[in-house]
């Protein structure tokens, strides 16, 4: 009996050790009010943490000590331990859909997609600095590297808004294409994924003028830069593809078939991409070298994702 117990302890600690080495993937199941915590080493769901309503996006605090999860339907911001996924505290907040900290860590910008508002918070105190009513459907946020400006896509009106964070005013809004969603600062320009089209727009951050458009696939939804800064990844929701582009030239490197409405991406240390598949309750683990995809079951409508063992 002792031998069996000893073996059991040995095996479970070995498994735990491996899990620690691989880290945990935290997946936000927006459709069934929960977070899936996945052991990245073994690809198994460790547990499902209930939240109130509808978690969509996630952001790591500037000091790396807290992971913020916006529960838009519950009007609540959750603060998690980024190592374990444990919920440490909750803060009432109006419709936190997408959220991002400014590069200097001073501001937290939160879009309220269902309320046509963009809230800028003082990140240190979490107090609202200013609310910007912006029509309509403010979706995703990006910043200028000097933290002078926050850029927000307005899905319902095909526009991009630039918010001056020094004066807390809207500098401009400009038309950028059909149903803009993801936005990313790259090479001194803004890249805006136009979900109602098949491309991302390259936008001048000074005035919002579209300089060129780069084809990626139907339903271009979100853009992510690889940790080494060399590859630009774009998810195309209608085509069901994830494409890799050269981050400097925007030349297509490779297109991968990722069914089920690919949405958010996080990058693991082993070079693999973890991609949420909104419509099929799964997370795809894509090995870009081979193109192999392993899909893991999670909750309904998985949206944001954060890898505790991720590369940033």
């Amino acid at each position, binding site marked *: 009996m002792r031998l069996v117990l000893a073996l059991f302890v040995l095996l479970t600690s070995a498994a735990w050790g491996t899990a620690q080495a691989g880290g945990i993937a935290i997946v936000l199941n927006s459709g069934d009010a929960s977070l899936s915590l996945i052991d990245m080493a073994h690809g198994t769901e460790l547990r499902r943490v209930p939240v109130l309503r509808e978690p969509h996006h996630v952001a790591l605090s500037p000091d790396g000590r807290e992971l913020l999860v916006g529960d838009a339907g519950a009007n609540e911001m959750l603060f998690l331990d980024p190592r374990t996924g444990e919920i440490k505290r909750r803060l009432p907040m109006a419709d936190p859909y997408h959220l991002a900290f400014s590069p200097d860590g001073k501001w937290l910008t939160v879009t309220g997609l269902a309320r046509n508002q963009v809230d800028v918070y003082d990140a240190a105190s979490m107090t609202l600095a200013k609310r910007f009513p912006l029509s309509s459907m403010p979706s995703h946020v990006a910043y200028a590297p000097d933290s002078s400006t926050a850029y927000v896509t307005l899905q319902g009106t095909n526009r991009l808004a630039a918010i001056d964070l020094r004066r807390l005013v809207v500098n401009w809004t400009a038309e950028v294409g059909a149903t803009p969603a993801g936005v990313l600062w790259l090479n001194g320009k803004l890249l805006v994924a136009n979900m109602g089209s098949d491309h991302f727009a390259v936008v001048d951050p000074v005035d919002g003028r579209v300089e060129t458009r780069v084809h990626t696939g139907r339903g271009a939804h979100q853009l992510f830069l690889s940790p080494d800064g060399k590859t630009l990844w774009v998810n195309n929701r209608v085509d069901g593809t994830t494409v890799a582009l050269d981050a400097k030239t925007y030349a297509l490197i490779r297109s991968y078939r990722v069914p089920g409405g690919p949405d958010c991406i996080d990058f693991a240390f082993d070079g693999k991409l973890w991609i949420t598949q909104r*419509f099929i309750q799964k997370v795809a683990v894509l090995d870009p070298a081979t193109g192999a995809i392993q899909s893991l079951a999670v909750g309904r409508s998985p949206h944001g994702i954060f890898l505790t063992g991720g590369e940033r």
Partner: protein
Amino acid sequence: MTDPFSLAAGWLHETLLLPALYAVGAMEWEEIAFGWALFACYGLAQVAVTFAICLPLERWRPVERWPDQKAVWVDVFYTVLSRVGVLPLVTFVLFYQLQVGLNGWLSDHGWIPPTLERLAPALLGHHLLTFFLYAVILDLSEYWRHRLSHMFGWWWALHSLHHAQRQMTFWSDDRNHVLDDLIGFVWFTAVALLIGIPPMQFPLLVLLLRFLESLSHANARLSYGWLGERLLVSPRYHRSHHSVLAAGQRSANYGAILPWWDVLFGTADFSRAYVRTGDPSAEEALATGSYFQQQWAGLRRMARMAGWAGPRRAAGLKRGH
């Protein structure tokens, strides 16, 4: 475990809805369409489960037998419109901007809809208990919406479409005037702003509640016994509400799922058994017309009654009424 309804909704969305929205340049409705796909899949399941259980029950122990059931087919149409989500989708789209505006205005004034879980943090993680509490509160709100729809003359004129059916079956639950449904949606939205209702967080339990509502309209001799009748609305109990004797602005048994509210507010009537249904004062089109004839007749009746109708004194039907 992967939820088969969600997978079906995902397939519907990815294969049909998303390409269609993309083709017509309406991708901003993409999230809403996905939510609707799930609603529609659960709606289809609701219809199938209700059909599979209620139909044999109605055949086995019918209260009434009719030579033909033409009037029932219109109710089938109502059910499909409502449960598969066409009407909720239209209502939602119509009211979307209004909701957004109202939510934004309220949050500008510091109002963040509370949730039961925030008021009672001990509920966090206790899904079944939380759902039960939400269901009880919603049922109470439905009781008052329903009761008010009988009190106001113009509103009763619309709601009388639901009562005009003389061949009441499990299909009759969704037989409503479209304006009555719209008022119901506004009512629900107001309650959601007050208590923060979880939308499709508990789809299987919502399916169960909707099944109970359909069952309460079934043309079946089914009672839950003395105690059961006081815990849950049965076909026998709800039939009293639809009885020819109770039709109108003074009625009884308004409860949708729970008879508790009728007992509490003095409108419960446990005395009648398996009475005939219908509204003798309604014009024939309301009972046996086509869908559009019924809708038009409801509007006409509302216009007639709006001339003199006003708030009526709340009056519950006493026993033996």
